């Protein structure tokens, strides 16, 4: 029951990430997906090592979102080769 609720949240946020227009909006939806996937991993594997994996996954996904947000500030508009 709990994993189903979280699963529906994940899929809805993923679809919103795909169709969103603004890039920073996409980053905020990606953050919700990181929270939910970490919670699902913790609830699925109920042993202490599962909790350690969920915590590691969350911290590293936060680091990766931080890097993407920094690059969005650094590269304001990409120059694409036709």
């Amino acid at each position, binding site marked *: *029951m*709990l994993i189903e*609720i*979280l699963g529906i*949240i994940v899929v809805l*946020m993923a679809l*919103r990430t795909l169709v969103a227009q*603004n*890039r*920073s*909006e996409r*980053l*905020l*939806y990606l*953050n*919700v997906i990181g*929270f*939910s996937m*970490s*919670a699902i991993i*913790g*609830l699925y*594997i*109920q*042993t*202490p090592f*599962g*909790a*350690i994996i*969920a*915590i*590691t996954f*969350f*911290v590293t996904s*936060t*680091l990766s*979102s*931080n*890097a*993407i*947000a*920094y690059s*969005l*500030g650094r590269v304001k508009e990409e120059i694409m080769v036709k």
Partner: protein
Amino acid sequence: MNEILGIAIAAVICWVNFVLIDTWMGLPEGPGVKGADVIGRSVQKRGGDLAGGFFQGNIVCSPDASAGTLLAAIGCYAIGIPEGGLIAAVLVYFGNRLCADPGYAGTTGALSITVIIFLTSFIGFKTEYFIVGMVIAILTIQGIYHPGASRLLGKIAHKMGRHTKLT
């Protein structure tokens, strides 16, 4: 305790916990790392409040009280009630240093929600309710309507005297 009711009450408790701790520790005042600046200004451009935007950006870019709450709840569920929260607090502290963030919001949130989980376990709240409740709380702030959520966070920041001075 009925499951849906338990999850709803746990969501409200988690929301209040992490919003109050984060606002008190100064998250709406300014961007902690550079990525939060980008997200904050983008939310402001779409019609939101700048302090709320900085708050949302700080949630994305570094582990703060929302991360501490969720990870302490997962730790308490899988490892056991006080030990899991303490292990999660230590790992959130490492994550903060890795993101070059000098704050202590993550560890404070983790420790406070560990106390709350311990106290409500006597009333019949299972720890899973807090995990799902925390995800629903983050969904309301970062998943539904960003300008509206940022205005609400800006109002709370005004009331606690932590609104941003940048423009």
